[in-house]
């Protein structure tokens, strides 16, 4: 049975990357617990507008867990405590209790400057992709699937790596502000397939160099990233990236 809950929401307000930023809070009354977290924020914004206040800014797009736009740090966890493998948009109010205080913060990392409130600039991830997260060798016209043999396990794992939506939860959770889970997933999705092999060495070096240049931290294997990843990427990808990178460097 659906029930209604009332709670206090503390949300981060910040006018641009240079602004100091502060928390505002608002009492939410009688919110049905089958409301999604983002729908609840829509209700918050309607109430703020009615009160003549400035609405709260947050990123969102598809609202079905595949675009990677939502990026809220809810009660100490990126995307909040959802079912394993879900983004903020798939978090429902039934996960909270009557009388709770819910704290909403942006991804906090030097690599992701705040644009406004909880909307952060994640274009650093695009720059890392532009550095080499693609295949540029000629692979020819589509040929018979059986002509290129790929072990089922590799194909499955490449798909799992490719399911990384680049939301940045890994960076948000990491005490080192490291982007290794993202970069390793994007290197792995191609490294595991024959079409990605010809440029594997170049790709690993270029993407890691760009990641370092953009100021992301050094991975210290705390595993916070894989614990919060909405797409269940694992640090096995990071080991693979280390392998690809070191192999490329030693072959120079």
């Amino acid at each position, binding site marked *: 049975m659906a029930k209604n809950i009332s709670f206090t929401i*503390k949300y981060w307000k910040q006018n641009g990357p240079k602004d100091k*930023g502060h*928390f505002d809070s608002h009492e939410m009354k009688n919110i049905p617990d089958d409301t999604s977290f983002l729908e609840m924020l829509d209700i918050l914004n309607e109430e703020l507008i009615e009160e003549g206040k400035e609405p709260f800014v947050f990123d969102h797009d598809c609202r079905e867990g595949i675009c990677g736009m939502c990026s809220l*740090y809810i*009660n*100490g*966890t990126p995307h909040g405590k959802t079912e394993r493998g879900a983004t903020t948009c798939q978090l429902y109010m039934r996960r909270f209790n009557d009388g709770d205080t819910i*704290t909403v*913060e942006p991804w*906090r*990392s*030097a*690599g992701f400057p705040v644009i406004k409130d909880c909307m952060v600039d994640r274009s650093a991830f695009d720059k890392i992709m532009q550095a080499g997260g693609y295949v540029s060798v000629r692979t020819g016209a589509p040929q018979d699937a059986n002509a290129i043999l790929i072990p089922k396990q590799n194909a499955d794992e490449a798909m799992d790596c490719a399911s990384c939506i680049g939301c940045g939860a890994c960076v948000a*959770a*990491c*005490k*080192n*502000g*490291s982007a290794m889970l993202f970069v390793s997933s994007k290197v792995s999705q191609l490294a595991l397939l024959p079409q990605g092999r010809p440029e594997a060495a170049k790709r690993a070096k270029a993407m*890691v*160099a760009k*990641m*370092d240049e953009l*100021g*992301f*931290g*050094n*991975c*210290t*294997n*705390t*595993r*916070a990233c*894989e*614990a*919060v990843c909405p797409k269940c990427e*694992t*640090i*096995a990808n*990071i*080991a*693979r*990236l*280390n*392998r*690809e*990178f*070191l*192999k490329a*460097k030693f072959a120079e």
Partner: protein
Amino acid sequence: MWLVKSSIGRKLVMSVTGICLVLFLTFHGCMNVVALFSGDAYNTICELLGANWYAIVATLGLAALAVIHIIYAFILTFQNRKARGSEKYAVTSKPKTVEWASQNMLVLGIIVVLGLILHLYDFWYNMMFAELTGAVSAVAEPSDGFAFIKYTFGNPVFAALYIVWLVAIWFHLTHGFWSALQTIGWSGHVWFNRWKVIGNIYVTLIMLLFVAVVVAFAFGIAPSL
């Protein structure tokens, strides 16, 4: 130089120096066990590792490993703090799979270094260093390592400090062991669990060797006494 400029390069340096230091601990732990059974045999090893050229070269190599490991630890931590940004989260929650040691490696490392300073003062300063400079300690001759063990661990304050130090090293290594192998790329879905189990058993065994010597001499129950 990519071992300085690249994040994975820097991590490789941490990993390789760390593995070398674990290998040294293995040797040191095995050597200590001799003192449990025979003071004479232990002193023979001490003589072998006195102010001989090969022991001095090995000591300098070891010191270099430790210094590089420590300097890189501070560089990495400084960079990581910067990457994290100045604004801290108001609310944080630690996921269950994140181990305490993994997030406190620098703090544990600092405790390890403080213990190391005490340890070098208790033993190395009175032994190899005394042999080199000719300054003799009031406790015993420089090559009489067994006497220094009896003297140091006979003092309950030193024994307790050494136990705290060994526990800190144990915590440091429970994360450090598998983390070093993850960094050099020898890990994955299967080897991750293997290295964790192998690491925990291996590190626990080595640290128990050290603890056994401290406890045996603190309570005066070593067979060699």
